[in-house]
C-alpha cells in the first residue's frame, strides 16, 4: 500500500505466553489496508501472539488495542463486538465437521444478523465463488481436500466483511501451486473487500508475493520489522538466515557481512 491508513491494531508492550512468557515487550501496529506478515521459525510464539490478539488468551502484560479499544479491558460483550469486526482463519481450518460448507460459512450470518435465509444463501454462494469453491455448498469438510478446507475457512472468516482478517499459516502443508492459489485469494480479498490482513506464516514465497510489511519474531521478541526488501537486506544473522535459508548462524553472519560491505 502506498498510503498507509489509520492504525487499527496496536500491541503495546505485550507479553504473551501460558505460565511463562514466550514473547515479551511486543510493540506492533497494523494500519488499515495493509497486508502484514508475522514471521518466525516454528515455536517462536507467533501463533501464541495471534491467540492473544484475537481474544483467546489474556496477555501476561501489556495491552491489545483493536479499532481504538482495548481487547481485554472491557466486558466479554465488548470483546465480542470487537471480534465481530475481525475474522480469523485458523491453522487447522476449524470448520465444524458436522455441518456442510454452506452451514459453516453461513453460521456467523445466521447467529449475528437478522438477514433473511435467501439472502444468506446468496452471500454464501458468492463467497464460495470468490475463494474458488463454486458450487460446493453442500459438501462437508471431511469430503474436500486440505487446500479446499483452508479456502472454506477463509470464506467463513470473511463472511461478515470484517475490516481485519487474521490467517494462521494459510498455506502450511499445501503444495506450492495450491499455496499460490491461497495467496491469490488473499490478494483478491484486499482488492475486492478492502480488508486488512495479518498473516502468520513462514513460507518465503508467500511473503514475497503478498506482504507489504513483515515482522520477524525470534528469541522471545520482535527481532526486526520493515518492508520485505528492508528485511531481506538486514544483516542480523537471524533475519538473514530466515530470508536466505541459511541454517548456520556463523555462515549467516559471514554472508551478511559480505553483503553489508
Amino acid at each position, binding site marked *: 500500500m502506498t498510503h498507509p491508513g489509520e492504525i487499527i491494531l496496536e500491541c503495546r508492550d505485550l507479553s504473551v505466553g501460558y505460565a511463562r512468557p514466550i514473547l515479551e515487550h511486543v510493540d506492533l501496529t497494523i494500519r488499515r489496508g495493509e497486508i502484514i506478515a508475522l514471521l518466525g521459525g516454528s515455536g517462536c510464539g507467533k501463533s501464541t501472539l495471534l491467540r492473544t490478539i484475537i*481474544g483467546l488468551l489474556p496477555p501476561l502484560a501489556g495491552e491489545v488495542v483493536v479499532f481504538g479499544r482495548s481487547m481485554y479491558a472491557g466486558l466479554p460483550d465488548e470483546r*465480542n463486538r470487537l*471480534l465481530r469486526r475481525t475474522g480469523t482463519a485458523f491453522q487447522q481450518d*476449524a470448520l*465444524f*465437521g458436522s455441518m456442510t460448507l454452506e452451514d459453516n460459512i453461513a*453460521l456467523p450470518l445466521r*447467529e*449475528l444478523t437478522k438477514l433473511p435465509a435467501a439472502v444468506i444463501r446468496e452471500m454464501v454462494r458468492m463467497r464460495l465463488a470468490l475463494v474458488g469453491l463454486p458450487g460446493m455448498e453442500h459438501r462437508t469438510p471431511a469430503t474436500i481436500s486440505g487446500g479446499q478446507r483452508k479456502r472454506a475457512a477463509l470464506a467463513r472468516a470473511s463472511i461478515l466483511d470484517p475490516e481485519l482478517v487474521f490467517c494462521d499459516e494459510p498455506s502450511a502443508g499445501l503444495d506450492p501451486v495450491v499455496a499460490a492459489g491461497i495467496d491469490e485469494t488473499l490478494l483478491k480479498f484486499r482488492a475486492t473487500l478492502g480488508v486488512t490482513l495479518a498473516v502468520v506464516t513462514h513460507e518465503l514465497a508467500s511473503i514475497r508475493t503478498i506482504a507489504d510489511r513483515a515482522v520477524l519474531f525470534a528469541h522471545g521478541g520482535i527481532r526486526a520489522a520493515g518492508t520485505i526488501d528492508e528485511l531481506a537486506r538486514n544483516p542480523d544473522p537471524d533475519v538473514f538466515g530466515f530470508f536466505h535459508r541459511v541454517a548456520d548462524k556463523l555462515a549467516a553472519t559471514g554472508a551478511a557481512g559480505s553483503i553489508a560491505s
Partner: protein
Amino acid sequence: MPPQATTVQRDGRSAVVHLRGDLVVPAMGGLYAKLRTVAKRRDVRTLVLDFSGAGRIDSSGIAVVALIGRQLAHHGKKLDLSHMQDQHRAALALSPESTGEPGEPVVTPGFHERFGERVLGLGVGVRVFGRLIAETVRQLAAVVTRRSRIPAGAVRHHIEVMGADAIFIVALLSFLTGMTMAFQGVVQLQRFGAGVFVADMIGMSMVRELVPLMTAVILTGRTGAAIAAELGTMQVRSEIDALSTMGISPVRFLVVPRIVAITVIGPALTLIGIFIGILGGMLVAAGTLGMPPVTFWARVVDEVTLLDFVHGLGKSLVFAWIIGFAGSHLGLRASGDAGSVGTATTRTVVISVFCIILVDAIFATITTLVRHG
C-alpha cells in the same frame, strides 16, 4: 564377511581391534560387549580400532564407537581410530561429541508435587466450573428475555438424540428392574403373608428411588459422555476458538441448548421409566400372586402421593443438570490431543455417577429427617 571375525590383538599396553564386515544393527550388540570387555581391562591404556577391514557403518555402529570412546575417556584411557575410510570419518562426525551435550532429562515430579498440583488444579477446576454455570444462566436469561437466540432447531435436535433415542433402553431397564424388585418383594413379603403389599413397595421404590437413579446412570453413559466427547473434539479441533473469535459465545451456542434439552428429557425419561417399571411389577404380581392388575394399580395410586412424584422428578432434574454441566465443563476443558477427549469422557462418567449417588444420599437423608424429625 560376518562381523564375528573381528579380532583383538594385544600390543603392550594397547589393544588393537581389527573390525571386520559391516558395522550395522545385527552385529552391534556383540561388538559392543566385546569392546567393553577389552576396554575394561586394567592393563589396556589405549584401544585402537582398526577400520581397514570394516564395511558400511550405520547409526548403531557410530553410537557404539562414540560410547566406547566416552567410557575410555572417563577412565583416562585413549581411543585411537586407524585406517578409517572417508565414509567412516563422515559417519563418525555425527557422534554426540559434535552435536553437543545430551539434553537435560525430564524430571518427573514426585508424590508431593503431584499431590499439590492436583489440589491446585482442583481449585482452578471448581472456579472454572462455577463460571460455566454462571455464564450458562446468564446466556439462558438473555435467550429467555429474547436479547439473544440459540441456534434454530438445536434444542429439538438434542432432545431427539438424548431423549427420544433413549426411550427404548430406559423403558427396557425400568421394566426389568420392576420385575426383579417384584420377584424379590413377593418372596420376602409372602413369608409374612403380606404379598399384597408388593404393589406399595414397587410404586414407592420406582417413583422415589430406582427409576430416577437408573435413568440418571443411563443418561450419564449415553448423554454425558457424548457431550464431553463432542465438545472435547470441537475444542481440540479449534472449533470452539473459531466460535469465540466470531464473537459467538460457545456457551450460548453449544452449552445452553444441551442443558435445556437435558432439563426436559431427564424428568421425561424418568416419568416414562416409572410407569413401565410399575407395569413390570404388576405383571409379576399377577403371575405369582394372581393379583389383578386393577388391584395392583389401585394400591399404587393409594400409596404414592404427588409429593413422592415431586421428589422423584425433582431429583431427576438435579441429576440431569449434574450430567449436563459435568459433560460440558470437562469437554470444554479438553485440550491438545485425542487422549484428552478420552480423559474428559471417562471423567464425566465417573464424576457424574459419583455426584448423582452423593446427591441421592443427601436427598434421602433430608426427606427422612423432614418426615420423622
